[in-house]
């Protein structure tokens, strides 16, 4: 795209290095293996030159230079502390300044043992201080939030944390206050550091000034065993380091991967790490005779196989298995149960059919790098900060580099300071993207056309938005990506865990490739999606329902239907980490291994396959999901044809390997356990497991879509004289909620969690007679909830938002099969008779 950058050649400690013009000396030195000590420097933050530790000598210059702020020049001769006494002495002197007021509390400091300041003091600091005056004393620690604590005495004022908040997250809760020796990191009194990226400041702090509550006094670095893996929470696919102490996870840290997460991690990825050790984990197979009783794997599988014989089988799963699991499941359904009634989605969306097929067939159509380098980005139906937080950071980075960004969404997102938002009622996206509403998007569409392939269109899961966005991309030449939210929704799509798609996005009318590998497919009729399956269950049209790593009671936006379905389907087979709310329904339970315990791949929202490896032994007698599917197939008289990951990979490679233009989601045959690195940004580590499914499951109903925003005329108590017309009520999960994977993350929830609320535009609130903070009843044809009102211009007029899964509201009781419906919202009458009092919807999940 751009001309090659001019290169310059210099020497560092006598070693010659050639780098692009403009490179900082400190970076050039790293390239020849010379590490100049530093505190304030961070490769992803703009240089500041504050700590002054990284002095180097440049031949011919009188003064020393800070290598973190000085660009290289051709022929430059640089001497670092390794070859220059002057530099060494200057660094020792600067360290003396830094240590003047530093407390001698390393033994009780969380940073002890992995502290750059401690390391340098040990390496070349003076043994004894010449400082005889009193030290600065601050109250410590100062909680900035329930997650992050500040110890100002330890702070070296490098401004990494404040620069991160300014330049990366944009959440400027913390700043440098005062000046001189009194300068300090601080937060406005009364405020909390309420940024979902706050933990990054802890990680990049070069001393123990910022520490996290969950890790406070938890361990010493020499106590920890550290493994590399991938964050299990969302489709961002952040590379992480996972620290365990005696087998228990105590910390997640971001691991640098500039192709994926740069060096960042959101607070959920960082602090929601206790779920693999949840107390209700069940690691043995169970079968219901009188009650649920332990049995052998073989016995349970055989019994289940018997139930499926000649039966009408349907399968629901979620978005958190591994690629290999999904592939095996897709094959099991099609070749053994001969059914296309399988789905992984929470909300199937006919308005996303093309987008899904595109995602399943074209991995890496848009990458993080493409977003970063884009000149124009249109984001449709995606609240990136809440849904794929690291993608949000990359969008901010793009903006910082000059990209023009538009967001079409019913709520204003945290891109608001760098992007133009067009707020629209859910369902209006298509009309607006087609140029409707007086062309409010004309400027964006023109920009997309002008930028062509330098433009990117990202579409999220809001109902009906994705394909409309894809049409815009197709028409303007922009690159398109459908951004799914959960950790491996993308892998499920790729494998064809979908009623209408086979592996690689093939339709049921293009079976040739698949039949070459799988043999003849007997059923070529599109199956039912999640909502269709549940309705069929409710109508007694399904005999056996498999629930694999999903809790529909919690995850599907039609709680009543799910309950009817579970009541009416004769046989329920649960495969997961635990039974949870499905315990009263399960006829058989198959224990699955957790992501810490198995090998495989997960795919980012881009379609980038990343390798994970088992990092601890399997719990109890659990098995990887794909292994259970393979034995199920055998028990049913079929054969999936693989017994090892290698064998799966080989087969997946034949169906999936060659289809990508720009990358390969899953590599063809690799070596078993230590299969090589994936294309780009791969990792060794491990993978997600069914259990997390519980966070939210699948849904999606073709017909339901039309139905829910339809009528509410049948709503109960239509007689209250409430104010005004129905609003379009929509929902999606917020980053921090009651999801299964956030179990035990109490500090995270305290810092960033929210009680349930309903959000209204001032014009609607006004006509409804509702003020900010008032309580309102929200009534849909599915249910009723009483919620506090937030009046804000950040939501589209005519729309109302409720978060999907808060501690005090499982919003799936309000919806009828889609994440959008119509609702009547009215003030709560103060003195209502007991009988008329609205029942607050049941709290989410039993866990």
């Amino acid at each position: 795209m751009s001309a090659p950058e001019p290169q310059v050649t210099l020497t560092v400690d006598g070693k010659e290095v050639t780098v692009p013009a403009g490179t900082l000396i400190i970076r050039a030195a790293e390239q020849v293996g010379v590490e100049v000590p530093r505190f304030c420097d961070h490769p992803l933050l703009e240089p500041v030159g504050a700590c002054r530790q990284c002095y180097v000598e440049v031949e011919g210059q009188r003064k020393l230079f800070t290598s973190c702020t000085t660009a290289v020049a051709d022929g430059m001769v640089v001497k670092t502390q390794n070859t220059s006494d002057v530099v060494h002495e200057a660094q020792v002197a600067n360290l003396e300044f830094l240590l003047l007021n530093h407390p001698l509390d390393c033994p009780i400091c969380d940073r002890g043992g992995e502290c750059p300041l401690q390391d340098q003091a040990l390496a070349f600091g003076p043994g004894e201080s010449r400082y005889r005056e009193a030290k600065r004393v601050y109250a410590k620690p100062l909680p900035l939030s329930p997650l992050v604590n500040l110890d100002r005495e330890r702070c070296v004022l490098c401004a990494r944390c404040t620069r991160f908040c300014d330049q990366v997250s944009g959440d400027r809760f913390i700043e440098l206050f005062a000046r001189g020796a009194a300068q300090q990191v601080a937060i406005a009194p009364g405020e909390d550091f309420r940024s979902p990226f706050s933990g990054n400041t802890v990680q990049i702090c070069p001393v123990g000034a910022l520490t996290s509550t969950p890790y406070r006094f938890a361990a010493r670095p020499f106590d920890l065993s550290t493994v590399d893996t991938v964050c299990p929470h969302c489709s961002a696919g952040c590379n992480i380091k996972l620290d365990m102490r005696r087998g228990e996870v105590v910390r997640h840290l971001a691991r640098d991967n500039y192709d994926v997460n740069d060096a960042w991690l959101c607070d959920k990825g960082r602090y929601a790490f206790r779920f693999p050790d949840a107390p209700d984990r069940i690691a043995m197979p169970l079968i219901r005779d009188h009650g649920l009783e332990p049995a052998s794997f073989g016995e349970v599988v055989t019994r289940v196989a018997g139930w499926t014989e000649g039966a009408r089988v349907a399968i629901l799963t979620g978005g958190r298995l591994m690629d290999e699991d999904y592939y095996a499941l897709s094959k099991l359904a099609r070749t053994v149960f001969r059914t296309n009634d399988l789905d992984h989605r929470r909300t199937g969306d006919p308005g996303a059919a093309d987008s899904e097929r595109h995602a399943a067939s074209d991995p890496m159509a848009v990458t993080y790098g493409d977003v970063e380098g884009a000149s124009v980005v249109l984001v449709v139906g995606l609240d990136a900060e809440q849904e794929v937080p690291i993608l949000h950071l990359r969008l901010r980075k793009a903006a910082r580099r000059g990209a023009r960004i538009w967001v079409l969404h019913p709520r204003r997102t945290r891109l608001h300071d760098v992007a133009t938002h067009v707020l629209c009622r859910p369902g209006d996206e298509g009309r607006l993207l087609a140029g409707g509403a007086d062309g409010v998007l004309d400027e964006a569409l023109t920009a997309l056309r002008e930028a062509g392939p330098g433009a990117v269109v990202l579409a999220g899961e809001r109902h009906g938005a994705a394909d409309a966005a894809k049409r815009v991309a197709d028409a303007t030449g922009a690159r398109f990506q459908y951004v799914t939210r959960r950790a491996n929704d993308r892998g499920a799509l790729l494998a064809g865990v979908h009623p209408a798609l086979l592996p690689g996005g093939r339709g049921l009318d293009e079976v040739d490739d698949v039949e070459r590998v799988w043999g003849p497919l007997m059923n070529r009729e599109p199956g039912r999606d999640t909502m269709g399956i549940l309705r069929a269950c409710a109508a007694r049209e399904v005999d056996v329902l498999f629930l694999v790593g999903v809790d529909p009671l919690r995850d599907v936006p039609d709680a009543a239907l799910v309950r009817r379905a579970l009541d009416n389907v004769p046989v329920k087979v649960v495969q997961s980490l635990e039974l949870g709310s499905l315990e009263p329904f399960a006829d058989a339970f198959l224990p699955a291994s957790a992501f810490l315990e198995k090998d495989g791949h997960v795919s980012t929202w881009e379609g980038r396959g990343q390798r994970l490896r088992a990092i601890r032994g399997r719990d109890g007698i659990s098995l990887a999901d794909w292994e259970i599917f393979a034995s199920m197939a055998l028990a049913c008289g079929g054969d999936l044809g693989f017994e090892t990951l290698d064998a799966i990979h080989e087969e997946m490679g034949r169906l999936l390997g060659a289809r990508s233009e720009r990358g390969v989601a899953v590599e063809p045959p690799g070596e078993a356990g230590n299969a090589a690195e994936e294309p780009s940004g791969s990792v060794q580590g491990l993978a997600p497991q069914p259990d997390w499914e519980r966070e939210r499951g699948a849904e999606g109903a073709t017909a339901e879509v039309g139905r829910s925003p339809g009528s509410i005329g049948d709503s109960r108590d239509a007689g209250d004289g409430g104010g005004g017309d129905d609003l379009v009520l929509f929902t999606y999960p917020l980053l921090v909620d009651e999801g299964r994977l956030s179990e035990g993350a109490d500090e995270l929830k305290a810092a960033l969690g929210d009680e349930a609320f309903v959000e209204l535009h001032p014009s609607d609130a006004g006509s409804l007679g509702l003020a900010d903070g008032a309580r309102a009843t929200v009534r849909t044809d599915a249910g009723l909830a009483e919620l506090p009102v937030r009046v804000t211009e950040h939501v589209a007029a005519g729309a109302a938002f409720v978060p999907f899964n808060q501690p005090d509201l499982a919003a799936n009781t309000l919806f009828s099969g889609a994440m959008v419906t119509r609702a009547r919202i009215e003030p709560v009458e103060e003195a209502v008779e007991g009988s008329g009092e609205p029942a607050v919807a049941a709290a989410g999940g039993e866990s």
Partner: protein
Amino acid sequence: MSGTRRVLTAHWDDPGVIRLAGYESAGGYRALRTALGMTSDELIQIVKDSGLRGRGGAGFPTGMKWSFVPRDTGKPTYVTVNFDESEPGTCNNRELVEREPHALLEGTAIAAMAIGCHLAFIYIRGEYLWQGQILQRAIDEAYAAGYLGRGVLGGDYDLDIVLHRGAGAYICGEETALLSSLEGFRGQPRLRPPFPAVEGLYDSPTVINNVETLMNVPHIVNNGADWFKEVGTEKAPGTKMFTISGKVERPGNYELPMGTPMRVLLEEYAGGVLGGRAIKAWTPGGSSTPFLTDEHLDVGLDFEAIMEAGSLLGTGAIMVLDETDCMVEAARRLVEFYAHESCGKCTPCREGTWWASRVLGRIEGGYGREDDLPVMADMGRNILFRAFCALADGAVSPIQSTLTHFMDEYEAHIREGRCPATGRGPGAAGQTEPADVTFATTGPFEIQGAPS
């Protein structure tokens, strides 16, 4: 090249020049009319030819500074006047504006024309409350008379001038800190490059000039470059405002040709040392410049000669200390100033000035130790040229120059626990406890108890 004359202070005897009418009748705004008829290149050239150098301390050639401003970036260009006069001992800008505010506006307007600027800012230190009002009144008068605003003097050149008040921060006299402050941020200096001429205010090309510098410009336009060079030295032509304060009979602001010997200023203008006492030390250019002594009275006050003598011309602010003054106290007070004014951004300045001020306070208070002196010397070396900006170097000046010229006085303090010049010992000057160092802080931290 010699002689003397009053240029900037020529009308100081006429109180009327504070208002527009008086300024006009004294020939004011004639240069602005002339400049309107000149091209930008001609304006830059005449200032270059005059050899005018910045009066704010660094002495950078003004015409060259203007010529660095790119004109084809598609961004606006800005002139920003540095009226944050805060260097201890310095107050000539204040009096220049107090007496003849329109001269600053005229100089600013000509600078703006030279770089194609249509919006100029004057950054005045907050403490100059009344001076700001005077300047604002002059701006209002100039707008009303058509010297500013849309279509200056009926032509097609537009110029707005906005007065912006600082709020008490010495560091904002550093030009990049000034820009940060003007943009609404903490007044902390920024990295250079990019230099303000290329990316300054609002990321746009910006010229930052000192008040006295700009006030010279109308005279150069009126009288020509050669006229300007008639006085002063070859490398530093023109007159210079000198402020002399401290122990002299007639402290004040005096306009003298560059290169005038210190002895002339002290004896002929300032009336000699107060009470006829002997001079002990003096700063040639404010608190940031190393002290000189009675040995240096015949040095000419210009950039080069002063540098040769081991100090800097700085702002031309001469503070005079006599034989009864304590050099440790002087050094302590000045270093305390730098500690108080350190912006906190970089380590050597933030920590070094704090440490040095406390050690000096301890010595002054009679609690010095033998090994304090080598530590002080190390501190000076470890701060000098190591900090982000020049503020910390200013703190090194009093440390190093007093150690150089007055080591015996330090040693006497430490040996006898009292000052040989003033006789003050423990308990004097508020020093009651070893740790009880008066050190103004702006923030909420407590000072721990006494050190061992």
